[in-house]
């Protein structure tokens, strides 16, 4: 190495160090800033803080906390022409919702043909965000079936079910007689089993006297009503347009509603629908069940705006504005059905079914069912404004990292990095003396450069990324170890210091390059293959290894050039 190249290299190294420090400054400033100062900055100069956060090294979700969900858009029910851009439309709508929810730097992108990744860093209320993103938000208005018809249909359902159970009961009895004592027929469905058991209980007074089991006692007492009206005995009529189903009866009612014989009774253009929420009535929890007309009278596509509000009873509601055409249609609908209830349905569930008081034109309101929180009105307004998703979505991957877990990872990661770092520095200094200290200098620079390059490239630091940095620290000394060991060997053969240094660097070089390239190959594969945290690892490792080539070979070389003139070499 000539005097000239050495000077050039020195200038280059100094320049690189300065550039690195410039890139690292925002990160160091942000990370060392006390929480109180951050808060004052947030209120006084929010733009400065955002700027600083942008310039600082990005932290991955696993360190910062936040939410990562992958949604799959179910296009199976779409027509081919709707399918074309369904995912893109869904993505736009979700982006709109997230923007309105107010999350800083959300990441929303398409993955493959029908998936959408949503990443929301540093989020507190994950459940709410999840509901907001995953909701289809299909708003529909439907009329209710008239009371007379409803009563008739319910009566028919009761009759059919009663007949069915009668038949079943007889069948059971016959089978009892044939098989003898066994009261339970294992082949029957669970539901039928329960019925059989209940009926059996009436014949066995012992089980009635078993007062510890109050539920079975009650069932037995209600037995007559139950056999006559198997369906309506499961619910209560509070005089509204709806049926109150106690929450514990809901599974059974749902099962009955799926019964093909029951489905056959419900008229073609009618359907049953549950309310969105449960409600406490007279101290018990109920879910309302409505009998609706299937026809969609009006839908959310005519909405131009929706705002949450409290009504005069301090109950949350959403006020909306309609397009001109929507207003016309809505006026026609409401005008023709004054004093009738109109069900407001969101994603197949009845939000509420208020009675139309007067003709409504382009301004309307959605009263939320009982027990709704104001937050829900806020979110409903958001999804209504952003529009409905073109197709339902399912969450196929869901990762939520709480902020405290992220903090914990940062603390443990940095602690092990710092300990590992100093352990290596100490070892090298002891083992190779002054040469070791020079190698340590290279290791320190390696770390500084690595962090700076990651900052400059806008790379993201993850927990495996921290592990990658630690690993780099351990491995980056390898190049210097190879060189030093070689120099020692050359010195042993009796070479001069000058010749030993030259030979050491020259001969070790091929091994160093070969060894590092193999690591780079695997790191590149990992980068391609990995998800977020693993990518962070691959980036840290490959950059670290590449940079160590420079720090260990070039930078130490410049220093060793000076030492060539020394009479003894501390190595």
């Amino acid at each position, binding site marked *: 190495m000539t005097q000239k190249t050495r000077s050039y290299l020195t200038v280059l190294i100094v320049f690189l160090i300065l550039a690195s420090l410039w890139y690292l400054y925002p990160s160091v400033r942000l990370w060392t800033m006390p929480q109180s100062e951050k808060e004052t900055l947030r209120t006084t100069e929010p733009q400065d803080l955002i700027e600083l956060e942008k310039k600082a090294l990005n932290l991955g979700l*696993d360190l910062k906390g936040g939410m990562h969900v992958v949604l*799959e858009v179910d296009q199976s029910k779409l027509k081919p022409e709707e399918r074309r851009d369904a995912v893109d439309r869904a993505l736009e709508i979700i982006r709109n919702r997230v923007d309105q929810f107010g999350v800083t730097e959300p990441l929303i992108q398409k993955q493959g043909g029908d998936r959408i990744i949503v990443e929301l860093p540093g989020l507190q209320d*994950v459940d709410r965000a*999840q509901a907001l993103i995953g909701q289809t938000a299909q708003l529909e208005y439907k009329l209710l079936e008239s009371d007379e018809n409803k009563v008739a249909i319910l009566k028919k359902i009761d009759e059919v079910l009663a007949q069915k159970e009668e038949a079943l009961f007889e069948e059971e009895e016959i089978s009892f007689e044939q098989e003898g004592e066994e009261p339970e027929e294992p082949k029957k469905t669970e539901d039928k089993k329960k019925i059989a058991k209940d009926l059996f209980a009436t014949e066995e007074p012992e089980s009635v006297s078993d007062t510890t089991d109050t539920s079975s006692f009650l069932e037995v007492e209600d037995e007559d009503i139950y056999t006559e009206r198997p369906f309506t005995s499961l619910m209560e009529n509070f005089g509204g347009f709806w049926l109150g189903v106690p929450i514990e009866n809901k599974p059974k009612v749902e099962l009955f509603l799926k019964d093909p014989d029951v489905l056959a009774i419900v008229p073609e253009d009618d359907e049953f629908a549950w309310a969105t929420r449960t409600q406490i009535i007279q101290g018990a929890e109920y879910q309302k069940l409505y009998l609706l007309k299937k026809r969609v009278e009006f839908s959310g596509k005519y909405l131009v705006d929706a705002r949450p509000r409290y009504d005069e009873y301090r109950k949350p509601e959403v006020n909306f504005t309609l397009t001109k055409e929507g207003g016309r249609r809505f006026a026609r609908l409401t005008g023709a059905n004054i004093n009738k209830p109109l069900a407001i349905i969101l994603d197949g569930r009845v939000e509420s079914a208020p009675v139309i008081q007067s003709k409504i034109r382009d301004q309307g309101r959605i009263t939320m069912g009982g027990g709704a929180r104001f937050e829900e009105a806020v979110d409903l307004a958001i999804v209504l404004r952003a529009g409905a998703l073109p197709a339902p979505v*399912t*969450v*196929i*991957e*869901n*990762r939520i*990292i*709480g902020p*405290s*877990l992220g903090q*914990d*990872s940062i603390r*443990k*990661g940095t*602690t*092990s990095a710092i300990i*590992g*770092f100093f*352990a*290596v520095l100490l*070892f*090298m200094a*002891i*083992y*190779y*003396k002054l040469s070791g200290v020079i190698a340590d200098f290279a290791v320190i620079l390696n770390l500084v450069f690595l962090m700076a390059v990651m900052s400059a490239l806008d790379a993201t630091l993850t*927990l495996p990324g921290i*592990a990658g940095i*630690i*690993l780099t620290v*351990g*491995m980056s000394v*390898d190049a210097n170890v190879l060189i030093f*060991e070689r120099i*020692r*060997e050359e010195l*042993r053969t009796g070479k001069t210091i000058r010749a030993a240094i030259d030979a050491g660097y020259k001969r070790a070089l*091929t*091994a160093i390059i*070969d*060894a*590092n390239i*193999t*690591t780079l*190959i*695997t*790191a*590149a*594969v*990992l980068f*391609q*293959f*990995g*998800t977020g945290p*693993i990518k962070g*690892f691959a980036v840290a490792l490959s950059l670290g290894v590449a940079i160590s080539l420079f720090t260990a070979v070039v930078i130490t070389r410049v220093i060793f050039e000076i030492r060539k003139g020394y009479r003894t070499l501390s190595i």
Partner: protein
Amino acid sequence: MLEILKKTNIDFIGKRYYAFAVSGILVIFGIAAFIAIFLGKADLGIDFAGGTMLQGYFEKEVRIGELRDAMSRNGHDDAFIQSLHREMPHYFLIRVKKTAEDVTTIAQDILGILEKEFPGNKFHKDSVDGIGPSVGRALQKQARVAVLIALAGILLYIWIRFDFRFGVAATITTLHDVLLVLGILFILQREVSLLIVTALLTLAGYSLNDTVVLFDRIRENLKLFRRKGDFARTINTSINEVLSRTIVTSLTTFLVVFILFLVGGEVIHDFALALMLGIIIGSYSSVFVASPIILEWEKKSPKRFK
């Protein structure tokens, strides 16, 4: 000059048959683990198998046994429950392998169970990981492809840099190292997660690093000793020459990974363990596996010393 080893002259090559026996046995475990993974019998992490993992803490004390009973009472017999040491007391990790198309339902189900079984003792969830079955399957496929590409890339590079024999020996050694670590993890009943696969790929690169340094020296010495010594002695000399480097580098790398293992936290714990094993095995294999392969091959069909 501080030295861990003075100039050594250990007969490594002479002990190669013992090494073959040890490696052979462990490789069998590795292959068993590999087959088990392939057949879906191994303990795959939720990244690959799909499933749900919850971390969080209870407000009041809950014993791990109570939690386990509560979970199995509600249809989660296979739930894995671990008590974690965090700032919050009563901190647990709960993992189930059950999956559903919509993964949020499983987490909600578990939270519902906890609410029902521990009334008045709220469980605060800190993190949720829910992986659907299709995501897991896709990742499995990706991982297999990644391992193959990495091995092919390494092989290609070594073949370009060295000759065919060295290339084959280096590839076998790398495969040996990965299988050995996999085998040991299998014996220790560790879960094969995404991070473990990452560790395996990383140590493939690292162990090769060691082999390459040794091969580099063997190649250099073969030129020097062309006429003089025999092949086995050349290899043995080369091993002894690079021995102190092997030990120093392994030591520094091992040191940092060991610290990671001790204080890095449970997310990184198994990852660090795999790397620790890889570093030890990587150093061992370049001496006892890679070099003997070259030697045996030369013995069978001499190429350099006819």
